[in-house]
């Protein structure tokens, strides 16, 4: 074990250990818990930055441990995993900050932050998994650690939402387990490798591989909320806002999307998958989900539900990118992994602020919030516009690459889908913005809290502002060397390069 592999473990443990310690903290030790949280998140940021630099310089990070013979638990850092791990680490830091503010004075915070840290540990683990088995392990860990967060409030609705969530994800997990076991029995241990590891089976086990792909997509598609497996997502909205952000932007949904990317690129290999003929159905499913999610979002009055269906729609962009052969689409999909995360988390932070500060839960109650919460609403607006795909914001970059990739691959219908989706996005976001900025505020907000100097608690305010800034940065400086896009191009080059 060397320093390099220690860095990997450090990334995991920075949240795992803090989480475990937090579990055993007394409810009252508020300050200690906050510091621990921020310390863990900050430490992780530093470690990931180091990792990022190392990977960029071409160092190999690997750590493995055989927990069953021939079945290593392996961590590694390749370009792909860095993309996700960086995203989740950055967002986690701000989500933590936000959550500390958001949950001030609510009960069971030790439990909450314990699971919160576990959840991020699992996400990091998913990102850093170097083989399919490790991925599976962290994937299930994610399921388990998010459940207590979803039901955190303990209300009947929360419990019901949690039950639905667990039912979906466990079913998906079981199918994924079957797929993994099956693939292992065919191919032995399955490390993640660019261009896939199944070349040897292409001739002899063609049919099995097709079935397996279906199983994988169902198993992971649950978390990625591909229609019709998305049913849990809107109901999980009962969770506190930081959790929703986590679910939608950082952890669960992203883990699903990332898993699909992994399967397509690093298990099957895009070209192998194309040859097996499994990509077009996936693309179609993604396309359908994009439109369907957007349409559903249109009819939601509850803000968080609208955002949830928006997620259903947006995540499938990533899937779509993976399902279309060619580097351009890949770039579009992968970069949207980051962009959607930034956008959606900003939106949820905003929604959380509305709920926490003014007691607003519905779109119809949002008249004039821009005047009461100008900074929050500004961040919200940036993110909403980004979602719609207004240049030069982040969303625009993803959509641009996606449609270019689709055209190159000859899938012209995709551009239609993207256009339709953008229109729909506009249709469900613009009214909100209009209400927020241009309609007069009501005489009294449903439940207003006052937080002194700022429009709301400073922690609640800092997080969306930062993420909104990131959204702008990711779009405006997309072509610079330090942007998500630049990194994604590196990945695409490795997958499709010579």
């Amino acid at each position, binding site marked *: 074990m060397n320093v390099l592999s220690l860095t990997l473990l450090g990334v995991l443990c920075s949240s795992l250990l803090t989480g475990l310690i937090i579990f055993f903290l007394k409810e009252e030790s508020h300050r200690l818990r906050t510091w621990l949280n921020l310390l863990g998140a900050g430490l992780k940021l530093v470690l990931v930055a180091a990792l990022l630099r190392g990977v960029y310089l071409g160092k190999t990070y690997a750590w493995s441990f055989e*927990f069953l013979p021939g079945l290593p*638990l392996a961590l590694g850092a390749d370009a792909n995993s860095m993309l996700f791990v960086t995203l989740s680490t950055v967002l986690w830091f701000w989500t933590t900050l936000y959550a500390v503010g958001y949950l001030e004075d609510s009960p069971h915070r030790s439990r909450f932050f314990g699971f919160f840290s576990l959840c991020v540990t699992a996400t990091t683990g998913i990102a850093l998994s170097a083989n399919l088995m490790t991925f599976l392990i962290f994937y299930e860990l994610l399921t388990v650690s998010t459940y207590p967060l979803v*039901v955190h409030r303990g209300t009947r609705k929360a419990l019901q939402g949690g039950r639905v969530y667990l039912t979906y994800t466990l079913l998906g997990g079981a199918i994924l387990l079957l797929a993994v076991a099956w693939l*292992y029995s065919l191919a032995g241990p399955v490390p993640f490798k660019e261009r896939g590891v199944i070349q040897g089976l292409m001739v002899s086990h063609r049919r099995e591989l097709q079935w397996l792909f279906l199983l994988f997509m169902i198993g992971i598609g649950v978390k990625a909320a591909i229609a019709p497996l998305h049913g849990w997502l809107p109901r999980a909205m009962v969770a506190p806002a930081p959790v929703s952000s986590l679910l939608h932007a950082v952890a669960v949904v992203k883990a699903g999307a990332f898993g699909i990317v992994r399967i397509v690129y690093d298990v099957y290999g895009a070209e192998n998958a194309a040859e097996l003929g499994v990509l077009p159905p996936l693309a179609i499913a993604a396309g359908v989900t994009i439109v369907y999610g957007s349409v559903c979002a249109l009819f939601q009055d509850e803000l968080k539900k609208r955002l949830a269906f928006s997620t259903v729609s947006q995540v499938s962009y990533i899937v779509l990118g993976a399902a279309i052969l060619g580097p351009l689409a890949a770039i579009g999909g992968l970069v949207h992994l980051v962009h959607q995360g930034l956008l959606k988390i900003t939106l949820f932070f905003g929604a959380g602020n509305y709920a926490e500060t003014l007691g607003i839960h519905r779109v119809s109650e949002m008249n004039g919030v821009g005047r009461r919460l100008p900074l929050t609403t500004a961040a919200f607006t940036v993110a909403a516009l980004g979602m719609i795909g207004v240049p030069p914001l982040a969303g625009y970059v993803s959509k641009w690459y996606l449609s270019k990739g689709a055209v190159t691959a000859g899938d012209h219908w995709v551009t239609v889908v993207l256009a339709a989706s953008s229109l729909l996005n506009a249709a469900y976001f613009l009214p909100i913005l209009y209400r927020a900025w241009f309609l007069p505020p009501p005489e009294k907000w449903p439940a207003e809290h006052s937080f002194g100097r700022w429009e709301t608690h400073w922690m609640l305010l800092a997080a969306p502002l930062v993420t909104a800034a990131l959204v702008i940065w990711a779009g405006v400086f997309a072509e610079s060397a330090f942007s998500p896009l630049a990194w994604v191009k590196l990945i695409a080059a490795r997958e499709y390069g010579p």
Partner: protein
Amino acid sequence: MSGLILGPLVAAALAFTFPKRGRGMAWAAAGVVGIAVLSLIRAVLGGGVQSHRVSGWGAPLGIDLRADGLAVLLLALTALIAVAVTGYAAPYLRAADSPEARHRERYFWPLLLFLWTALNALFLSRDLFNLYVALELLGFAAVALVALEGKGDALRAALRYLFVSLSASLFYLLGVALVYGQCATVDLALVAERAPRGPALTVALALMTGGLIAKAALFPLHFWLPPAHANAPAPVSALLSALVVKGAFYLLLRLWFEALPVFHTPAAARLFGMLGAAAILWGSINALTQSRLKLLIAYSTVAQLGYLFLVFPLMTGRDGRFGAWCGGLLLLGAHACAKTAMFLVAGNILRAAGHDRIRELAGIAQVLPVSAFALGLAGVSLVGLPPSGGFAGKWLLLSAGLREGQWWVAAVILVGSLLAAAYIMRVMTRAFAPAVPGTWVRPVPPIMEGTALALALVAVGMGLAGSWFVELLWLGGPWP
């Protein structure tokens, strides 16, 4: 090896003679057994299978003890759980300073130590008749422990358990008689050498197997288990579910894979597999419909025992043999720890709430956070979520099934896992609901919660140490 028998046996006798020293005796026995188990593990890992000829004669005239990987694993598991129960039982039994409580504590310790003796004897012996005596010792201790609860349901359950256990023992013993008539020995290894395929041994094996599956509570002979396990005192339920039924299963493994492997035909194996599958489904579905927590856990045991019997069909081929063996036993270990944790949690809940009706248990996570956490972790292992021991075991079984082309096994495992998730969820949902005032009336000492959590952690952590277990299980296993 001898310390494993003599330690708890002598301690049991002393605990009975000096009732006030019961707990001390249990700890003393735990010390002796702990040292013995550790040195035995070292010896087996270092020098392979260890044998001991009792009284120095050796089979066939004398009795041989042998410790291979399987035996050592179970001995260690027994020691672990017995120690945990010892730690847990003291505050549990002293819940109230009533005459009943004093009475229960006075007899609990010797009975616990007898149970421990019996399990150790069972795992070490390689002599069919000696195993019979060990089985009886085990059965009596288990029944007496169930009856210790003293309430009507517990007594009735104990009586039913006793009847099943005794008649099952007699079936087993008749089988032993036939084996002796045929082979002129009751030593497992010699029987394997001298066993011709014929009616006598077929019927003998059928008799012994019948008796043992009744003791192991394999569907459809599981009917005695839920009432007995659900009505016993919590630490006793834990011991019964974790270890006692496993003892009979262990003996079945010995019989089918060591003494009479020639009878392990695909047809017989499939029969076991079918019963196992039926047990998984039936037990899980029943667990889903129970209204009491302890009954739910007990039915879950019925289901989980079914998995163990999937080892039989998976051992017929060559490819999946090793994986199935290790998977089954890893699952056994993980279930033992997880189930102990669950029953201990149930004991905590019973103590805190005065009942274990699931519907009325809102707020466990709030009132007993450590217990709720333990319950969740144990559930993780039971469902088979990674990286728990349950996951590692199921993974091995699953891959063995796929490798052998036995798809139905894979299907059963997955469906069983989902059903397990469903019934665990029933409880966990209650756990996170806000507590209803007046439900939780008594505090629970930290040690009772801590013990449960520790075992749940072991169950989960077992998966990470899978390689170590596999290495151990390889030693002296039934490999061609």
